[in-house]
């Protein structure tokens, strides 16, 4: 067991001459809720994209639970245990809610059956589909989406779409969950509910969570530690209250 669930070493990426992110060193302990904050364009989502294989970092590397994942494809990284949500929601809109979650369960070894078995409808097909469905319903129940499981994903209200995205990511059974602005566009009630749900996931699924968020109340109420990015570099890091009250951080946010 590695000391940290996620460890990045001098992680950075350069687009042409632009150094979008430089020298990001995150050290996230197991079962920790970690925040990544910073003004717009600071490079937060770029860090997420590197951690999930969308971009390949040009410098540095990162380890999940002691295993180096740099250079792997998105699919492989997901199977190794990093799941994410997107800043602009990316659900499978033409599919029902439950089927979105079922897609998330796709790679779980306990529900494995071959395409040939699907085409010929062998007993394995019926058995696994039934198990998958039960698991999907369990996950939907956490987010109060079970009632709406047969609705199309695109017909859900915005807040619920965000929750469904988290549910879908959770279905891939990750070790580390990356949430990109999970509370964006939610009303205060929904945000409060979401905070409880994220805590619930952390406690009940033994999950490590890294999240990006602009809502400071959300971050300070939820995160154990934060890293503040500005112009692609680390501005402050450490305990949430200390880091957020750092004069440099306040300056970067408010300007001056």
């Amino acid at each position, binding site marked *: 067991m590695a000391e940290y669930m996620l460890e990045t070493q001098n992680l950075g990426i350069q687009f042409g001459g632009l150094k979008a992110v430089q020298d990001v060193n995150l050290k996230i302990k197991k079962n920790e809720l970690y925040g990544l904050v910073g003004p717009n364009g600071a490079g937060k989502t770029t860090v997420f994209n590197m951690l*999930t294989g*969308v971009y390949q970092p040009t410098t540095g590397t990162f380890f999940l639970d002691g295993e180096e994942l740099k250079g792997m*494809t*998105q*699919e492989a990284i*997901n*199977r190794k245990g990093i*799941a*994410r949500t*997107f800043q602009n929601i*990316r*659900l*499978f*809109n*033409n*599919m*029902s809610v*439950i*089927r979105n979650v*079922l*897609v*998330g*369960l*796709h*790679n779980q070894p306990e*529900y494995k*059956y071959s*395409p040939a078995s*699907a*085409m*010929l*409808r062998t*007993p394995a*097909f*019926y058995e*696994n*589909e*039934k198990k*998958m*469905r039960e698991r999907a319903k369990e996950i939907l129940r956490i987010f109060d989406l079970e009632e709406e499981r*047969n*609705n*199309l994903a*695109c*017909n859900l209200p915005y807040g619920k779409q965000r929750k469904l995205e988290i549910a*879908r*990511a959770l279905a*891939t059974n990750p070790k580390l969950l990356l949430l990109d602005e999970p509370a964006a566009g939610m009303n205060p009630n929904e945000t409060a509910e979401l905070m409880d749900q994220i805590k619930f996931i952390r406690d009940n699924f033994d999950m490590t969570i890294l999240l990006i968020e602009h809502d400071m109340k959300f971050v300070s109420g939820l995160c154990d530690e934060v890293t503040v990015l500005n112009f692609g570099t680390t501005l402050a890091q450490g305990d949430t209250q200390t880091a957020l009250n750092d004069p440099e951080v306040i300056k970067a946010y408010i300007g001056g």
Partner: protein
Amino acid sequence: MSYFKNIKSTFKVKNHVNYIGVVAFLVLMIILTSTGVLSRSSIGLLSRIAYSIVMAVSLNLVVGFLGELSLGHAGFMCVGAYIGCSVGNILSQSIDSSLLVIIISMLVGGICAAFFGFIIGLPALRLKGDYLAIVTLAFGEIVRNVFKNLPYFGGAMGLNTRPYNTKELYIIGFVVVLIVLVLIQNLIRSKHGRAITAIRDNEIAAKAMGINVTFYKLFVFIIAAFFAGVAGVLYGNFTTPVLYTFFSYNYSIEILVMVVLGGMGNITGSILAATLITFVNFELQSNLSGDLAALRLLIYALILIIVVLFNNAPAFKNIRAKFSVAALLSKFQKPKKPEDVSDDSAKWDVIESKISMNEVLSVDITDEIAKAEKEGK
């Protein structure tokens, strides 16, 4: 025994409309043929309908469910027709049973086409949209020209085949249609089908969910090519010689038209559209003689324009709603209670989506299991 219980509990007529329809059609045609009502050319039309349906349904897997545009489907059919039928020619010298010969040649033709599907699938993983369409288009043209220039396959004169007895070929054809339908629908209604439609809906999200996009794209191309190859052997057993001109760009487009007309991702629609287009083509060909023959393509095009407009134009929405199959059926049914309607298929008509989905996609076997369990309690 729980296996059979599962099958029984999940069996619903609604999910098997296609199979029932095809079987009923086949039985009707067998009766009509044996009583001598159908002319010889009409019996030939049935074989043409059979291979058109196989082509349309397999292309629908690529275009409708995977969401990649392929314009070279006739190329796969060409591979199947040439290789499968030449194997058939060789086999018929040593095997007496022509049924066995056609089965083996369909398998060989299908496997060869599947191999080409694999080769075409490889660039498909790197190319998107229009670029892939161009590659598949080029493939279709290259394949038929290669066969044109191979003396072994008869060159420009075409490959001489031994046509199967027309009065029996269509039965084999519709049995193949049935097998293809069962395999493709079962695939679509499984977790692998979900993965395929997830790639179509949002490839980035599908990758983030750990779905092996490469594998599924390749897999779909191979499966679709296999069935196109089988359809090619049916074609080769229907007509002789197998001529390279048939597998032109125009034919690929014709299959695509069937898919679009029937609705992307709609298997029932593909079957109906394939039947309709083949029928219209046949009737126009046989009824317009002399100078009127030049009008054939014009009339064909007009019919297509009218059907596509009728299917999609907002102005016809009310008329469609009034005369749709669902509306006609609902006259005979009691209005459903809301809790019964909460099945996912009921919601499909509601969306105004460009790609019109149908119940084939929406009826997931798992929903049926759940429902059966609920009723059991």
